[in-house]
């Protein structure tokens, strides 16, 4: 008998951005939930960059919010600067990014956790998962020997598993920020047949604001009109006084110091074994790989209101302390810089996420879910959205309900998870807008319209909030119809207006919609010509404008989505031996057997499975009608339900 034995519905391991979302989702759905962390002071810690959002990551935060997650609300309460990126580009790539007050962000999230019913916070290192003979999860154990029985568990261990930090020759066996690493769980996972990877990432130094000369840098301001992340935040509440960031550059002198000391970088001396991300290269990587670049951008960003620490964005490094100091001091404005915390690289254990279903449940262990960097992703937002989905699906499993599976045409979250569980990856995965093939439909501005219904069905979005989304939908639809009907004649007033806006005068009358499509005009500008326009909220007007302006493109993508959905709906049998289908190539059989794709669509995205293989599987599925009618109707019955 263990010294302590307690019972919960759900155990969440890790209280970073994934763990917090997972635990909140489960507790809010009424399940008794316990969340473990190696340090209660590090809940929702931001050990790397001090911001939330950014290109495509802003989309993820909006989606988290539309599904009933916490990240958007939390950053709205604690940001110190905000910017909508890509405002001059199309609506699909507009992306919100906010600088966070890190300490406040962490504290606010901790408060939310503390104030949530059914949620217990526990400082302990989880060292084992416990399963029964049928591979169902039954509990987790901590290093102290305590046993926590549960019906489902969610692993969100971030970068803590067997973590190792490197600064030049100095290696410490700690997690980020000098926190305690979790050294035991990996072994338990391996014993349960889980395949582990070892990844690497890094962070730059934090420097003292007082030692910087901002007169040599360019000031970077936030937006004049701030847009909140959460659809529930009142925009008036976020119009705050903002902090600035600062832009400066490396130079030849910086690069010379780096080149001269490459042999002391653990990356290049071979000490680091883990695979690092290509999109987030250390400054030594940038200098080596892009040798022709004379300078690299450096963003100096505040870490919070109550600290003088500044984040040196763009200069992550694993160089020894003395090299760091020397190279940082070559950067204009940093000649006398004092480093508060050194830059370091960190190595950690994570899993090959191909072992998961799209619900983020392990194929091998029923009731065990995982999210975040543990799944081989990188970034707070990527972690949070997975944590939310894993948490929701742990709850759905316990409640014996259908899992939440978002497909590639519904959400960036869907793209991210599908990529993780389907494709081969050898580096930490970061979201990018170019990964979303239907990005015109997956905009940050319509995340609520896309996902609130699901959030409501799950039980994380209130009736009231959902009703407003339905009402908004109706208003948008009606206004689009109206705008397509309104005729604008070629009269004097109209011609004068067009001339004023550098737009070509009309030859004959047109619909209002046609004028909205002109690049120099938009829905709001045309209000003066639109005599019977109803008074609509800004969020409705924005949708009307986008849907009309880009109608041609949007229609094309909707058509592509229809085709895509057809293949997603063709379900495949599970735990199936693909060698039974005689004519498949061996390479395909191996990959299909390992991955057990849920649908023809997913199968077609596995690298190495050819269109011919897909044809063969389709024919085989049809044969089932004669050879195995039970299975055939089971698969096709599912299809009709969807």
């Amino acid at each position, binding site marked *: 008998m263990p010294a302590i034995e307690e019972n919960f519905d759900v155990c969440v391991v890790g209280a970073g951005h994934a763990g917090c979302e997972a635990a909140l989702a489960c507790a809010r759905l009424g399940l008794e939930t316990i969340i473990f962390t190696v340090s209660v002071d590090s809940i929702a810690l931001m050990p790397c*960059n001090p911001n939330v959002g950014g*290109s*495509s990551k802003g989309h993820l935060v909006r989606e988290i919010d539309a599904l009933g997650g916490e990240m958007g609300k939390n950053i709205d309460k604690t940001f110190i600067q905000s910017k909508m*990126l*890509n405002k*001059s*580009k*199309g609506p*699909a*790539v507009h992306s919100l990014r906010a600088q966070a007050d890190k300490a406040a962000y962490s504290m606010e999230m901790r408060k939310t956790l503390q104030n949530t019913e059914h949620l217990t916070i526990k400082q302990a290192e989880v060292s084992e998962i416990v399963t029964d003979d049928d591979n169902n999860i039954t509990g987790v154990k901590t290093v102290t020997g305590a046993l926590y029985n549960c019906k489902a568990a969610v692993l969100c261990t971030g970068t803590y598993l067997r973590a190792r930090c490197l600064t030049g020759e100095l290696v410490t066996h700690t997690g980020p920020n000098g926190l305690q690493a979790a050294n035991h769980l990996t072994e338990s996972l391996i014993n349960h047949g889980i395949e582990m990877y070892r990844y690497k990432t890094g962070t730059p130094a934090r420097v003292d604001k007082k030692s910087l000369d901002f007169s040599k840098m360019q000031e*970077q301001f936030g937006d004049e009109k701030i847009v909140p992340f959460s659809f529930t935040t009142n925009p008036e509440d976020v119009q705050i006084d903002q902090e600035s960031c600062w*832009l400066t550059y490396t130079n030849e002198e910086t690069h010379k110091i780096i080149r001269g000391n490459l042999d002391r970088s653990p990356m290049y001396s071979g000490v680091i074994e883990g695979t690092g*991300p*290509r*999109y*987030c*290269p250390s400054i030594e990587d*940038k200098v080596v*790989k*892009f040798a022709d*670049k004379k300078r*690299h*951008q450096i*963003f100096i960003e505040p870490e919070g209101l109550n600290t003088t620490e500044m984040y040196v*964005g*763009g200069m*992550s490094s694993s160089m020894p302390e003395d090299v760091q100091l020397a190279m940082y001091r070559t950067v204009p404005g940093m000649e006398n810089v004092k480093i508060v915390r050194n830059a370091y690289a960190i190595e950690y254990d994570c899993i090959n996420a191909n072992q998961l279903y799209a619900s983020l449940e392990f194929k091998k262990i029923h009731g065990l879910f995982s999210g975040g960097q543990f799944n081989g992703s990188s970034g707070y937002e990527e972690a949070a959205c997975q944590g939310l989905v894993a948490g929701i699906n742990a709850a759905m499993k316990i409640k014996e309900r259908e899992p939440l599976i978002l497909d590639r045409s519904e959400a960036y979250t869907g793209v991210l998870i599908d990529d993780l569980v389907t*494709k081969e990856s050898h580096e930490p995965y970061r979201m*990018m*807008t*170019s*990964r979303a093939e239907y*990005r*015109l439909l997956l905009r940050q501005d319509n995340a609520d319209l896309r996902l609130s219904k699901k959030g409501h069905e799950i039980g994380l979005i209130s009736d009231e909030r959902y009703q407003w989304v339905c009402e908004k939908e109706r208003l948008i639809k009606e206004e689009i119809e109206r705008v397509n009907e309104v005729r604008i004649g070629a009269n004097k007033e109209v011609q004068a207006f067009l001339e004023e806006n550098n737009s070509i005068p009309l030859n004959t009358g047109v619909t209002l919609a046609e004028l909205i499509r002109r*690049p*120099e005009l938009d829905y709001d500008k045309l209000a003066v010509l639109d005599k019977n326009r109803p008074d609509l909220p800004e969020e409705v007007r924005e949708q009307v404008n986008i849907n009309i302006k*880009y109608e041609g*493109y949007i229609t*094309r993508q909707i*058509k*592509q989505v229809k*085709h895509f959905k057809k293949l997603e709906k063709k379900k495949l049998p599970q735990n199936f031996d693909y060698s039974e289908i*005689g*004519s498949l190539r061996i390479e395909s059989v191996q990959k299909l057997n390992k991955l057990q794709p849920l649908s023809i669509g997913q199968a077609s995205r596995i*690298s190495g499975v*050819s*269109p*011919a293989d897909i*044809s*063969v599987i*389709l*024919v*085989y599925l*049809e*044969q089932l*009608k*004669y*050879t195995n009618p039970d299975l055939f109707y089971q698969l096709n019955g599912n299809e009709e339900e969807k």
Partner: protein
Amino acid sequence: MKTDTIAAIATAMSPSGIGIVRISGPESLEVIDKIYVSRKKDKKLSQCKTHTIHYGYIYDGEEMVDEVMVLIMKGPNSYTREDTIEIDCHGGVYVMKKILETVLKYGARPAEPGEFTKRAFLNGRIDLSQAESVIDVINSKNKYALSSSLSQLKGSIKDDIVKIREKLIHEIAFIESALDDPEHYSLDDYPEQLKTIVDGVLDNINRLLGSVDNGRILKEGVSTVIVGKPNAGKSSLLNTLVGEDRAIVTDVAGTTRDVLEEQINLDGITLNIIDTAGIRETDDVVEKIGVDKAKKYLQKADLVIYVIDSSTKLDDNDFEIIEDLKDQRAIILLNKSDLETETTVDVVKKYIDKPIISISAKHKEGITEIEDTIKDMFFKGDISFNDEIFITNARHKNALADSKESLELVLRSIADGMPEDFFSIDLMNAYESLGNIIGESVEDDLVNEIFSKFCMGK
């Protein structure tokens, strides 16, 4: 995105009385309405009863293509259980191609090998016993289609496409990098730059499209090489094959030839036969060039016909050829069966496992057997059907036309002042279409290009 209505030439690609172009899919009727004109110009076939046949003409816009009979079979009462149209036209290769091209232009896409049968099966038309063979067909044909489309693609054209794709992916990666890291990469003045690049690429694609029309992208037919030692009877074999009472397919325009080459047709299978110099060890410089060339052809051929003089014994030269043939599709002819035999079928069998036939080119004996063997190899899927080569060609053309369309959309978006992120969507479509030609999928090209060419991240 192309519709899911497919079309193909259903009859053999050879000169014959009648040819059939078949269309199947939800938009079959829509397609035929766009191109069919009745004599009185008053009929819409979509309005006509199913299982009726109609006389009239196929038009590509203003241009009349052929006089035809059109058969309408509305689903589910058709082979594929989809709306199906059969256009009976004149049987010339040119006419059939032209009609298929017209059908493709107005909304269908070229059928994959075996696709009609596959659809028939998937729509519940064929029973289980036939299903196995469907899988085999899909498998063998796809294997072939891929290898042939690559090997048949003339080197320079493949290079062109690879270069165009490199250009496109670079531009896409640049746009995407700028979207991903807008504070780092600026797109100011970029649309003008991109316009120049796309204009250039479009010129190239138009040139390639022109060359498809001339049939220069692919050489139709199966490249067949006759090899053997001097005086084995290669030339007389060729003369016998060509001299028979068969249609000689006219040469494809623009094909350059530097050796003696003839085209013959065996029940719809076109063979491009190349006669080569006799292979033997030689010190004669000029002869040596001929011999080297013959060996090169042997390695590249789809089918090798190896002629042995059965009245002499096998020597080192023969063994050398036999060695070269091991990995090739080949048939072996023991010529001069009318003379006394020194080398028998059994002797040759000991050295190589290929079909062996005794013939007399001079007395035209065994010729039918050669033909049957070749046909057999085709129908078993060992060698290509030549309509597949045509299909490949049509697919290439379609893919080029698709990429052209996408690039024109890019130009329009630039002219309309659309935001830059819209450019990359159509550029990507063009990139994918071109990838279909050289058999390369997209997978992670873009992400790799972004990370390797543009310095990203904080």
